[in-house]
């Protein structure tokens, strides 16, 4: 009979405290003052900051690996008094801050998928981004499946599932009293991790009751999620996007509400556009990168003053095409994980499902 590994819910707190001695632990933490949940270090937990594993975080996981602003390097112009014609430039790179290994606990499966896509952008082929890798490497990802599916979730529509753990190292399933391990990485790192904390990973035989419970939860979640939107076929959608690209009237119609802010872009787990800028004061300066958003007027503004995507609908069309067309051609996958964050934060109620649906039915 199959052995079942599980963590008791009552020992969860001890487990997290224990691993925080050896690892930097990040959890979804809710600020009680304004209700926002974000990934943050376990060290800030107190009466105002509590762990919340139920709901999605406001910011996706990209916030940890690809922060809104990061310094790339600092530079300084140096002159020798004896040799004034020569100016030297001294560069200083930020040190490797990733000395301790990280554990990120309580991620939803959609965010795990978001990280897979970020890896495709920052860590595949010849495109290896050292700043991203510095934060991404040495990370153990512990994901918890979604026993509760909210109305704006639609991961099943685009090829995910509430219990598809993807590249997560450990996948857990919440059955109320316990967290059942349903996915375990084969790697040495994880074997060591399990062995180190074997007190918390308890084992028992699979019984009928638990099996039924698991099956029921999985079925129920999948069912609720699939009612939120229809299934999207990546192959058909690219053709549709191509054929509607020049239908300006359609795009104008569906994006009329949009106010071209960055709320949807900045909470998206897959949006990775950034801007690089130099800032200098006297002889010292810094090169940094920070998030940028394609619905922004300045995103495509050229030095001549011409802007190829002058109107909001043109910029929004690019955004949708980026997710539902261009990326599929390169990687055979939709560049959207179905977390529904963009729907949740939109100030004017733009719903990506409605927009894609009206393009499909055009």
């Amino acid at each position: 009979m199959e052995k079942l590994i599980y963590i008791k819910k009552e020992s969860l707190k001890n487990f997290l405290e224990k691993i925080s001695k050896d690892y930097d632990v990040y959890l979804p933490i809710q600020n009680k003052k304004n209700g926002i949940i974000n990934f943050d270090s376990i060290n800030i937990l107190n009466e105002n900051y509590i762990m919340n594993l139920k709901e999605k975080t406001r910011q996706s996981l990209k916030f940890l690996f690809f922060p809104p602003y990061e310094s790339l390097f600092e530079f300084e112009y140096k002159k020798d008094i004896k040799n004034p014609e020569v100016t030297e430039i001294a560069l200083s790179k930020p040190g490797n801050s990733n000395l301790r290994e990280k554990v990120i606990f309580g991620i939803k499966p959609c965010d795990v998928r978001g990280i897979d896509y970020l890896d495709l952008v920052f860590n595949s082929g010849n495109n290896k981004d050292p700043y991203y890798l510095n934060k991404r490497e040495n990370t153990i990802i512990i994901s918890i499946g979604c026993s509760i599916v909210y109305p704006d979730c639609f991961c099943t529509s685009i090829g995910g599932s509430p219990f598809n753990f993807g590249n997560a190292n450990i996948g857990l399933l919440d059955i109320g009293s316990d967290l059942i391990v349903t996915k375990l990485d084969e790697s040495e790192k994880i074997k060591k991790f399990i062995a180190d904390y074997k007190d918390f990973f308890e084992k028992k035989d699979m019984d009928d009751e638990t099996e039924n419970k698991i099956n029921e939860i999985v079925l129920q979640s999948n069912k609720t999620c699939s009612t939120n939107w229809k299934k999207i076929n990546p192959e058909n959608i690219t053709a549709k996007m191509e054929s509607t690209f020049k239908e300006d009237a359609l795009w104008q119609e569906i994006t009329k509400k949009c106010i071209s802010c960055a709320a949807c872009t900045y909470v998206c787990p897959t949006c990775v556009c950034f801007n690089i800028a130099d800032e200098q004061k006297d002889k010292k300066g810094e090169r940094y990168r920070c998030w940028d958003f394609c619905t922004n007027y300045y995103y495509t503004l050229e030095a001549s003053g011409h802007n190829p995507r002058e109107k909001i609908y043109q910029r929004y069309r690019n955004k949708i095409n980026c997710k539902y067309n261009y990326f599929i051609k390169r990687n055979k996958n939709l560049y959207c994980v179905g977390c529904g964050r963009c729907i949740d934060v939109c100030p004017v109620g733009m719903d990506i499902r409605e927009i894609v649906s009206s393009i499909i039915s055009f």
Partner: protein
Amino acid sequence: MNFINEGSKSLNVKNKKEDVKIVAFLCNWCSYAGADAAGTSRLRQPEDIRIIRVPCSGRINPLFILKAFNLGADGVLVSGCHPNDCHYSEGNFYARRRLEVIKEFLPFIGIDKRRFSYQWVSASEAQKWQKVVINFVKIIKEING
């Protein structure tokens, strides 16, 4: 959100008591000339003030003042022609309204009201300029404690 906080500078950075940074915006026609006159008549003034010359006090955007605070100034001083005396006849009337709004607003974001002041100093008032600077620097040093 410890990630976001990295390297953030904050408004009203406290410098040491002896070492205060004060930014002064002076209008070209009256106050700058007044400060100049104070210099030529050898009136001693504290050296904590960095003077920026602007064409008119009406040229001063609220942004200038806030930016100065954001970059760590301990105090900001604005000085222009007396009302009714503006070289461009009405620049300082507009300025007066704007500057007063800023002055009233600063406490609301946690900056002491006394850290910002606007004064009218004409080209001939070298003595007044000296007193203004001495007193303003004194006040800022007091606040910094």
